[in-house]
Structure formats: C-alpha cells, structure tokens
C-alpha cells in the first residue's frame, strides 16, 4: 500500500512563487505560465458541469412540466450535437439573431412555461450558489466539442449583427475611454500577467472563442460568454449590458464569425 501526500494546491503555489523572482526571468515567466495553462487544460472541472447540465436538460420543470429536450438550438427541436458551433444565428420564431444563452432562456420560458423572473433568477452563479444556466450551457457546448465553428452569415440580420458587433467592439466610451479594442485590439499585449488575445482578427478570435465557456480557477466556477462580456464591461467602467441583449449577441456573433473554421475545444479552463 502506497501512502502519498497530495498537495496539488501547494505545488501550484511553488511554481508561481518561483516566477516572482525578477524581470530578468521574463522568459522563465512565460514558460511557467505556459506550463500552468497546459496543466489546467488537461482535465477541466467544467466536465462536471457538463454532467449536471445534461441531467438538468432532461429534467421536467416548470408549469408545463417539460424538459428542454425539444429545445430548438437552430438544427431542429432536440438536436444538441453540433448546435453550439452554428450559433449565434437567426431564428425565425423570434425574428432575431440569438446566442446560446438567450436561446436556452427562450426554451425555458416557452417549453417549460417558466416566467422570465424565475428563469433569470440566477444567471451568473458563484461557488456557493451555482446557476442553472451555467450547467445547461456547459452541457450544450460540450456536445459541440471538435465541431468547426460556423456561426450564421447567410441571413441579412446575421450580417447586420456582425457589423453591429464590430462597431460595438470599437466604440470608445465611459470615464476611461475604453472600447473592447483598447485591450483586445493590439498584438502582443497583456494586462499585468494576463495575455490579451486580439479578438478582432481570426487567430485571436479562434483561440479565445473556442475555449469559452470555461471553468475559471480564480472563481472556482464555470463562466459563460455572457458573463465574460458582462464582466469586461464592469472592468471597462461602463454601466451593465442586459443579459442576452442584441448588443451582447452582436459582440458574440462578431467573434464567432471571426472564429469560423476553428474546432471547438471547450468547455475550457482559465486562470
């Protein structure tokens, strides 16, 4: 019988402490960060969210006592496999371009008969109070693992959403004059030690868009794209964007279209 002491948390801490030894070790820092990212990419707790999400997807809920199994994510009612890779897209039944989260919300309200108040009770969870939406999102995106990103660009409204997303990306406002491009518009930049992908070009968009939603180690929680956009605006010192609004969907669509062709690798893990 082998007795082993497992101090994974402490091991990680040791690696990070070694990093803080001085700027002359800049290349070592990069290697350590890369090692850390490789470590967290292998085996994401997000897979646990996927399992629970599948259960919730199949669970009968709401006044109509229905599951979400007839939800149409764009490939027909009930088709989940590969559906996320084709989002955002135009939906005839609502007459608008929708992302995954707004579509799940729509299904919770129409299929299950739940009120908007009930369905939006906790959209962004935390470690102590998880969000149903986050479990459902994890399950659905996991079903697109390996599928090539192919957000809709054939319908006029899809093209409108792409152009609007681009315009929003470059819109400078707020007390600090930030736009998304202030941080995500130039190659080779980072905030503190966090590398910033250029989201307005395919390489950066592909890398970022195929690894969100993600289990975020710093929050011990799975975080979705709607959350990521929301928290960006908070840090940009803007007021809050509405969940599933046209503005947030347009931004998502802009990145999704630029990410076209890249295989989906999520749900991922982030720092």
């Amino acid at each position: 019988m082998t007795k082993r002491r497992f101090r994974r948390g402490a091991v990680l801490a040791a690696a990070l402490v070694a990093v803080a030894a001085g700027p002359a070790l800049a290349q070592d820092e990069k290697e350590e960060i890369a090692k850390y990212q490789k470590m967290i990419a292998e085996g994401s707790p997000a897979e646990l969210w996927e399992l629970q999400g599948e259960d919730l997807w199949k669970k009968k809920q709401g006044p109509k006592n229905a599951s979400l199994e007839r939800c149409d994510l764009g490939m027909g009612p009930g088709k989940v496999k590969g559906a996320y890779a084709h989002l955002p897209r135009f939906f005839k039944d609502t007459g608008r371009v929708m992302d995954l989260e707004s579509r799940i919300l729509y299904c919770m309200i129409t299929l299950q008969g739940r009120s908007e108040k009930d369905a939006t009770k906790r959209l962004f969870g935390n470690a102590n109070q998880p969000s149903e939406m986050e479990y459902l999102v994890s399950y659905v995106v996991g079903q697109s693992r390996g599928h090539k990103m192919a957000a809709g660009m054939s319908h006029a409204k899809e093209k409108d959403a792409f152009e609007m997303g681009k315009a929003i990306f470059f819109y400078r406002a707020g007390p600090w004059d930030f736009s998304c491009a202030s941080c995500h518009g130039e190659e080779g930049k980072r905030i503190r030690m966090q590398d910033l992908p250029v989201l307005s070009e395919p390489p950066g968009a592909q890398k970022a868009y195929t690894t969100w939603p993600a289990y975020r180690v710093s929050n011990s929680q799975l975080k979705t794209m709607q959350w990521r956009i929301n928290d960006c605006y908070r840090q940009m010192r803007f007021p809050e964007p509405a969940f599933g609004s046209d503005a947030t969907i347009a931004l998502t669509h802009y990145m999704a279209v630029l990410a076209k062709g890249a295989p989906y690798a999520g749900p991922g893990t982030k720092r």
Partner: protein
Amino acid sequence: MNTKLIVPLCAAAFAAAPLAFADPTADEVAAIHKRDFHKRGQAGMDRVAQDAVQRVCTDSHNKPPADLAKALEGDELKAIPFPSGSLIGDWKKGERVASGGRGMTWSDDPKKPSAGGCYNCHQLSPKQPSFGTIGPSLTGFGKKRGSGADMQRYVYGKVYNAKAYSLCSNMPRFGSSGTLTEQQIKDVTAYVLDPSSPVNQ
C-alpha cells in the same frame, strides 16, 4: 415578355447594390448602447454617451486628422488645473495608487478612494515582475529625464489627462474623469520622478 432581357437587368441591379450592406450608422451604434445597457451602482447611463474626444477617436479608428487632433489636444491641455508649486508628492503613497486597481466600477463603493491601476499597463519598479505591456515601460523614468518643473508638469498632466498629449491614447484621463484626486496624482508623479522612488533605482 423577353426573358433574355430580364435576366441581365436583374444581374445589373444586383451588381449595383452595395456589397457591404449592413454597416450601422453612428446614431444606431449610440442607440443600441442606450437601449441595451442600464445603470448599476455608480455606473450611470451618462457613461455610454460619447464626448467629442471619444467620438472623434472612434470614428477615425484612433487616427484623427492632424489638425483636428492638435486643436482638441490644445483644448484638453488648457483644461488641466495644474496646482502651483512642486508637483512631487509622496512616492510611497504613489506606489499604492499605482499598484491598486479598484475604483469607478459598478461593484466599487463610490465613497472609497480609487486607485490608478498603473501596473495593469505599465512596468514601473524594476522589482515588480507583475506588470502589463499595454503602455510603455516607465522604469527609470525620473533617472533618465530628471525631475525638474517641466518634467513634473508633463507627468502630472499626462496622468491628469493623457489625451492632451496624444488625442486617441489608450490611457484613461485619471484627473478629468474624477478617478484620482490632485494629491493622488502628485503622489503618482513622485513615484515616477522622485530619485528615491523604486522606479528610479
């Protein structure tokens, strides 16, 4: 009906139609912000309305025409309330302002002082490895450029309103936005210029 004629006419009509047919107007972009954002905490809706600088920089993709930039920069510079006397405060306090990142968000308490978040974008003290690269390195700034009255005015002015020096700079206007107080900016100026500051060791 001569079908042969109709087809080429249709083709001509399509060829004449604009290819990039979905570019939103500036008004539409402003409107979607007004409609889809809402006030939360101290972050009010005034924040999504663009001022002249933001509008010019957005419309010109941060490359404004030279004469317009010069004129607007001049206006911004005139509006900086430079204090009289030395602009060098306490670098120890300045280090805290530079290292801290809180303030001005919807989750921050507006009654508490904000910080400058300088390390988010800049390298400063050579001993601090956790720095961003959105802005240039400021390591040794005071050592290289001295800390005379002109340099004090430049650094203070830059922190107060970076747009007075480069209209579409990425750097926020920490003074004119009400983020940092006069004393905090003097302290940051000291952090950058004071010969005994870690930045200049």
